[in-house]
């Protein structure tokens, strides 16, 4: 049985309406106007990933929260699990950009890192 998914391509303002058909081992993309659309459509149905960003409370810092992000993209299905791991931590100032805040978040193998410096207040 072939499965169909409707997506909007995000590579450019055109925003092509893609139809991705998954038929056993074969994936076909229609509605795209360029090869980037095809690649996007295939990735979105086989291995969709996202960068997750949030903030974490800082103790003793010159600002209340430090922005954080996953060091690379993580599977889309793990977004809320990664958010839970972010919600569980607090950090102590000083914080440096790139510091690991959560190691191997939610078993993704990807660390959550600080996205700015926070000095001691």
């Amino acid at each position, binding site marked *: 049985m072939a499965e169909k998914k409707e*997506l*909007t391509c*995000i590579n*450019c*303002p*055109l*925003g092509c309406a893609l139809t991705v058909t998954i038929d056993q081992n074969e994936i076909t993309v229609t509605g795209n*106007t360029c090869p980037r659309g095809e690649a996007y459509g295939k990735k979105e149905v086989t291995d969709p990933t*996202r*960068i*997750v*960003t*949030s*903030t974490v*409370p800082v103790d003793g810092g010159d*600002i*209340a*929260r430090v*922005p954080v*992000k996953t060091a690379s993209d993580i599977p*889309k299905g793990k*977004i*809320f699990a990664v*958010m839970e791991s972010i919600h569980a931590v607090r950090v102590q100032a000083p914080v440096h*950009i790139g510091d690991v805040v959560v190691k191997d978040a939610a078993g993704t193998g990807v660390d959550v890192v600080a*996205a*700015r*410096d926070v000095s001691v207040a």
Partner: protein
Amino acid sequence: MSGFTKGIETEHVGILVIGGGPAGLAAAVAAKKAGISDILIIERDRMLGGILNQCIHNGFGLHTFREELTGPEYAARFMKQAKELEIPYLLNTMVLSIDRDRRVAIMGRDCGLKTITADAVILAMGCRERPRGALSIPGTRPAGIYTAGTAQRLMNIEGFPIGRRVVILGSGDIGLIMARRLTLEGAKVLTVAELMPYSGGLKRNIVQCLNDYQIPLMLSHTVVNIHGRERVEDVTIAEVDEKRTPIPGTEVRYECDTLLLSCGLLPENELTRTLGASMCGVTGGANVDDLLQTDIPGVFACGNVLHVHDLVDYVSEEATLAGENAAAYLKGEVAARSEGIGITADGGVRYTVPQRIDPLSMRNEVTVRFRVADVYRDKTIAVYRGKTRLFARKTRVLAPGEMEQVKLDRKMLEGLTKDEGLRVTLED
């Protein structure tokens, strides 16, 4: 707190940069690199970086650094350069006024009230959100109504919770970003209502902030009533007709505790207006020439105070140019300028920046940025000198939410006269 205390004693500076956000930082860095030693940045917030500090999402810097950075990381790159170049700045300091002789009145915690004179001024004050008062939404005035950017700051920098059940009016990028942010923090975003039949936000944000989390986008809908005494209790949303008038009978009440407004950004030009610079009615920013100079000599403008951008990369690019041009102006390298030749925007092009160009003293290449009035398919962007088409580029889709640009070559404009004129337009 200020970066370099020597800045405080300065009574006169070469270039005064108003605003320490992405535009101000890039302009100051460029001016310093161009050989101007006495620069001072005035910032009213308690830190440099401007709006980028609260834009914790990724997607910044794809053009500038070929990487996807978060807002704070993008800002940090420019702050590092400013620090290495030892560019002085004052924090917690407001500019109160500027006059035509570039006397600038400032007030701050550390410096008190004082006047600084500058040989050149770069306006980089950014923009502000359109507030509820400018939207004429009927209803009560309870707590729980925020502009999307205010909510973003409260949440991401100050660390306050915003609400549990949220309705968003307007599909500007900040509203879309906040829909995702609130969802990730456990709030329920019920819907995003957009008055227009198309979204004002970037496609990428609609897909990754709304579609990813099954948040509906209701086009041609608006909030017609707000209910609640102490706190928002619910809002009424109705469909609108093609004249944007609510259609009776389509009202639906949404039970919520928070309403976010993401209904457009307005360049913050109170200073520019009191200065008496010529203003553009469409952008809400100053009219500038190809050097990004206003009609007041020595006063330059760049970034969102000039016209609202969707990508910070273009802000940095524009601001770098403003910084270099201000430096050239100080060094006497800018030839006496004619009033320039106005660029006409028509056929669906709403405005251009710059608004005028001086073909005699322009750089070899000038980038002309603009926005279109509606969603257009299969149009050609064309530039005319008199009746001659200088440039044409086919496009598949153009939208008001995405800024466009064309580059003009100095050679193309050689000998251009006022009678010929220059025109940017869309055609079939």
